[in-house]
């Protein structure tokens, strides 16, 4: 009994020392975990904007992509510093439905009313949505609706009257 207690005590000290050293090292080296994902685990990309960049940047999330998860990720915005959401503030998803390989997603009116405008911003928003959702198996094209209605355009450049395919040109040279 005595020995067991002593061993337990020693083990406790040992654990405390190890933890303490780890904390100390992390503090000293400012070691930031490079990746949010464990090796070997499944992951999927969600596309966000980067300041000043004409391209979309992927942020990888653990798990397998499905519509609800990807839309939630888009609404939440990026976790990595340096990235910016592609959706304007206050947007909500009203609903979505899939017909064949086309996904129809209806957003609240904020997608338009809170959007800054400009063709580059419109491209980043539209293809942030389309490129992220077409990562899901079985979805080839996405049509964006506002308040359940089909729209001509979001901010006056891209024709949104039909489903859109994924845009590879916005994925940056390293991605292709």
């Amino acid at each position, binding site marked *: 009994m005595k020995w067991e207690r002593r061993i337990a005590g020693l083990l406790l000290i040992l654990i405390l*020392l190890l933890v303490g050293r780890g904390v100390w090292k992390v503090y000293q080296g*400012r070691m930031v975990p490079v990746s949010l994902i464990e090796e070997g685990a499944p992951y999927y990309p969600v596309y966000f*904007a980067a300041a000043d960049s004409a391209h979309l940047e992927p942020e990888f999330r653990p798990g397998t992509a499905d519509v609800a998860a990807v839309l939630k990720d888009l609404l939440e915005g990026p976790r990595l510093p340096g990235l*910016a959401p592609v959706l304007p503030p206050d947007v909500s998803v009203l609903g979505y439905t899939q017909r064949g390989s086309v996904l129809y997603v209806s957003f609240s009116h904020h997608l338009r009313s809170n959007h800054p405008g*400009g063709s580059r911003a419109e491209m980043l*928003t539209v293809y942030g949505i389309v490129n992220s959702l077409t990562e899901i198996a079985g979805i080839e094209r996405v049509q964006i609706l506002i308040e359940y209605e089909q729209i001509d355009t979001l901010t*006056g*450049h891209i024709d949104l009257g039909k489903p859109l395919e994924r845009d590879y040109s916005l994925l940056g040279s390293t991605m292709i």
Partner: protein
Amino acid sequence: MKRVAAAVLLITFLLLLLAASSLAVERLFVGGIEVELEEPLEIVSGVILVPTWLLEKHFGGTVQISDSRITAAFADQTILMRLGEKSALVDGESHKLDVAPQRRGNEVLLPLRFFADRLGFQLVLEEDGKVLRLQKPSQVRERASLFERLRQETSWAEEPEPVEPVEETAQGLSDIVYMGGARSRVFIDLQSYTGYQTNLLTDPPRLILDLYGVEGGPLPVVEVDDSLLIRIRSSRFDEETIRLVFDLNAASGYKVTPWADRGLEVEFNHMLYAAGLRERDGFIELWLEASHPPSIEAIYLEDPQRLVLDLQDTTLLASVRELPAGYERISRLRMQQHSPEVTRLVLELAGPVTMLPLQEAGPGRYVIPLFQGTAQEAQRMFDLDDFEPVISPDFSDDTKPVFGPQRGEDGEGILRGVIVAIDPGHGGSDPGTIGYHGSFEKDINLAISFFLGKLLKEAGAEVVYTRDTDVYVSIFERPEIAVRAGADLFISIHANSHIKRGTARGTETLYRANDLVSQRLAQLVQAELVQAITLVDRRIWGRDDLAIFNGSTIPAVLVEVGFLDHPDEEVLLRAEGFQQIAAEGIYNGIERFILEYFGKGEGQ
């Protein structure tokens, strides 16, 4: 049972020993250079304390101590502390310290981390805390990945294997080639390396380039002795590292470019030794002493009026950074190293000033005459034909454009017979994007469109506007208007915005994807526009999803002149002078395109 306990005891003891040993830093590296330490650095409550001389010698600061006040001055900031007090004052802002500065004998010890943080260094402890490296973030990453790799590859044997004298192998440094040129280019020929790290040091000025993962021996010294580079030395720094030292005449900015197949190239910036203003023959001149004729990008900004000259690939060596000028229209000259590659000169103005072309005034001496007036006035005064003012504010409304194309006599324009559809983006209930200060894109689009239309008409072309008032026209209707009018070209004028507002700047042109003719039109318009307004070139983009392109088959482009959500560019986009110059840039692109595709305008 006893044995188990003994083993546990032993392990605990060893771990304790290890933990204890991590509390003394025996070797310190600052930016890859080892600091000579007479005794290990003291650690108090987990904070490493360093003597003041270390900050002075290795961080380029000056530390003064009077009574209990400690004043540490660095190039870009001054840090105030007091002995025994756990707070520091930087630029009027108070910061908390974990450990107060304290006295040890004759020395004053200061908390290293705080200074490292302020100066942008990261602390990396290696080898169980015996070795401390202070590095800039980019170096940390390279270094860390190297250590990761080493950790995986080597089994950390008890004794390091002795370095075998290696004969010249393929993996080693095979050559250092001085290629010369105005930027003292040097090619480092080596088969492979795992990373590199650079450090520019002063006293004496030298660039250190450490190449990791390189075997083999060093090469003989390469004597260069040009205006900047004296010689290149190489040495084996440690088992993994070859160190190159470039001895310099001045601490110049540099660029390292890894070549795709092998080796890397080092080139140095041009240098600006001095600059100033003087009056000669009734002219005010900006004079420059530089190692090379500077390549200048100039831009005129308002509120307050100033002329900004960016000298590309140039390091500023001038000791004076600010000169009051006291001329009627130029009140001050400021100089700064704007980025590692760009030296920026700013002329603070009190009225329009036009830059005339750069002239050489002897070896290493250059002057830029500054005309105190608008470009038109300069033009009239000098009667210059091929004169291209670099920048000029304040265009008056009715004068003919100054640097448009040459026009035929009597309205016999070279674009006669061409019909151009101009599409001012948005309008009416659709304001387009809203500027940083609240201006509407639709108004700017219309203004630039009118300037463009005027230029096209003057050159003999016929112009059709998809809207010429503040009215809403749908994006599907716009190409129809052009087609109905029999237009040959469709030019849409817009101003841009980024989803992260205020972060982007520059000019982009969109064109109908998979249409080589539209692509060529976009290329020419983009090139001429960027040259005219000198904003960032964000290149051309083929799009197959824009309604205005899909409604017709005529060559079609959408010009995003600048980013209205960026405060600086909004100021430009609102200025009539800038709108006029932008229109001229777009016009020049259209003119080049028409001459290329249709030959002479009338004979299409």
